[in-house]
């Protein structure tokens, strides 16, 4: 009878394609929105993750996320260095000066000032050039997306000159930085030069980057730094999570995406659910005839579940393929680079759509279950 169920399902092409479209469309909407949301939230911590030289980030206790910092005192650095278990600790300065090119293009930048001696915190993934060239005077490294923003439609080329708050600097490298939440160009420079770009302030140390000694547990060391210095110390993962939590709690992004996802969920439930329910109800007479002939309710249950499984599998596969194609296209664009369909999203949506299809088939099945076979004589 599985064959009969399958043929009943695909026999009416228009209805079958309608069912597949409904499930595929809902899948596409849900996977698309949840993945974009998750990717966007991931971006809030990408600049933290790009710094591979730090196990622990030390900051002012009032600093809540990467993009908004309260400066530390210069004396905080040796205090952190004095904590047992610290292998090394270096400074990191963060500011947002304006960059201007010779052609007049300008943009606010996210400048990261890194330790003069070690260059700890320099970008390690380079598209062009060598990060060691930051040792040269008045040199900077800029990320590829930022380069394309400041030098649109121009080939990637080192040696270009630009001004950062009236300071002339030379481009010595182009990095492959992960996209940040704010789409500023990401500029890396030595600490002293980054300070000069920004202009003198009373306190200028944004973060202290700490490398733990081998074998030292990062959580334990972070807790020790906090207790001994009174500063906030977070592991890289903790700081990424804290930055993400900040954006979740303090921006309208979750609400916006939440509404879209809620709408997609309702559309998924109503369109997919109702279409499948109606499909079952429209076949009631046929199910009634099968019951009269001697097909048991359990067998009919299996037939409807088989139909639901086919609709779910084909619909979600098609929807997932559509979403993957969408992200494959947007992956090529600078603004949406590194945005991908997350497997967690695909898996979650697949489970959700399975529940939708099962609920709607259960509603249809209830009608079939209660159907009196004698109805076929009426």
């Amino acid at each position: 009878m599985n064959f009969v169920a399958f043929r009943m399902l695909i026999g009416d092409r228009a209805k079958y394609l309608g069912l597949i479209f409904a499930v595929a469309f809902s899948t596409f909407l849900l996977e698309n929105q949840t993945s974009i949301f998750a990717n966007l939230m991931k971006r809030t911590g990408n600049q933290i993750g790009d710094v591979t030289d730090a196990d622990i980030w030390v900051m002012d206790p009032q600093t809540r996320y990467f993009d908004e910092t309260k400066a530390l005192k210069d004396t905080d650095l040796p205090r952190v260095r004095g904590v047992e278990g610290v292998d090394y600790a270096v400074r990191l300065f963060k500011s947002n000066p304006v960059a201007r090119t010779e052609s007049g293009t300008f943009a606010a930048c996210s400048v990261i000032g890194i330790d003069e001696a070690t260059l700890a915190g320099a970008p390690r993934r380079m598209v062009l050039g060598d990060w060691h060239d930051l040792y040269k005077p008045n040199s900077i490294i800029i990320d590829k997306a930022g380069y394309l923003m400041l030098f649109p439609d121009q080939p990637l080329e080192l040696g270009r000159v630009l001004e950062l708050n009236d300071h002339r600097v030379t481009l010595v490298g182009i990095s492959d930085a992960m996209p940040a939440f704010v789409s500023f160009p990401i500029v890396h420079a030595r600490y002293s030069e980054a300070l000069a770009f920004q202009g003198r302030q009373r306190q200028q140390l944004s973060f202290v980057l700490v490398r733990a000694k081998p074998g030292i547990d990062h959580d334990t060391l972070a807790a020790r730094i906090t207790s001994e210095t009174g500063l906030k110390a977070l592991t890289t993962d903790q700081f990424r999570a804290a930055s993400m939590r900040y954006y979740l709690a303090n921006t309208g992004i979750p609400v916006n995406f939440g509404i879209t996802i809620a709408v997609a969920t309702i559309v998924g439930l109503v369109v997919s659910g109702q279409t499948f329910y109606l499909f079952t109800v429209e076949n009631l007479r046929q199910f009634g005839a099968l019951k009269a002939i001697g097909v048991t309710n359990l067998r009919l249950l299996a037939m409807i579940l088989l139909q639901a499984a086919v609709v779910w599998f084909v619909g979600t596969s098609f929807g997932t393929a559509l979403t993957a194609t969408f992200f494959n296209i947007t992956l090529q664009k600078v603004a949406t680079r590194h945005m991908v369909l997350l497997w967690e999203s695909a898996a979650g949506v697949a489970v959700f759509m399975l529940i939708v299809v099962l609920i709607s088939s259960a509603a249809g099945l209830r009608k079939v279950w209660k159907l009196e076979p004698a109805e076929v004589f009426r």
Partner: protein
Amino acid sequence: MNAETTTNAVHCSAIRKSFGSGETRTEVLRGIDFTASRGEMTFLVGPSGCGKTTLISIIAGLLTADEGHVSLFGEDLSALSPREQILFRRRNLGFVFQQYNLLPSLTAAENAAVPLLAAGMNRKTAVARASEMLDQLGLGHRVSAMPRVLSGGQQQRVALARALVHEPRLIVCDEPTAALDHKSGESVMNLLATSAVHPDRAVLVVTHDNRVFHFAHQIAHMDDGVITHVEQQALNSRLQSSPS
């Protein structure tokens, strides 16, 4: 009573059935006693609303009587569990419906094979056997046709093949000619008389098409929930040898 020795295919005694409750309660069957024999075609005739369809639904085990007993080939249906009733129906009954009730997405042969598939037979064997049955009913050349391309008479022949393919002992037909023109109806009744009637099988037909009454061995007239009288008809030359 021994199921194999009784000559009665269908035996109903004191059947009562009502629908609704309170003031809307309607008694549809009011003490029906009825018998149909093996090897015969029995017609249940009467005006619309007299209870014919309710009676065959009860006989076929699709409805439960409020009172009375139904036995088919000596088997008391009320003594069977719901599941046993379904299995009994699957093995022993074939149905021909007024609106054919063919599955539109299955071919003629696949439609005719449904009772065999329901009984667990593999698809290839079931469809092959159904094709043979269609061939016997003069539709050998349309086994792969979809119902939508078949005429009403041809669809009813597919329904007849579906009713016969698993060799049931009772064929229940509900207005089998109602949706057909006279010629097609005559043809279907001819096939029913020649292919379905068998010494170990009974055919029960509900109809109010008096143009086909001459095919019946026995006609039970119903009115207002009771059988008013039963006529026995002698076999004559009404049967034509080949389907048109």
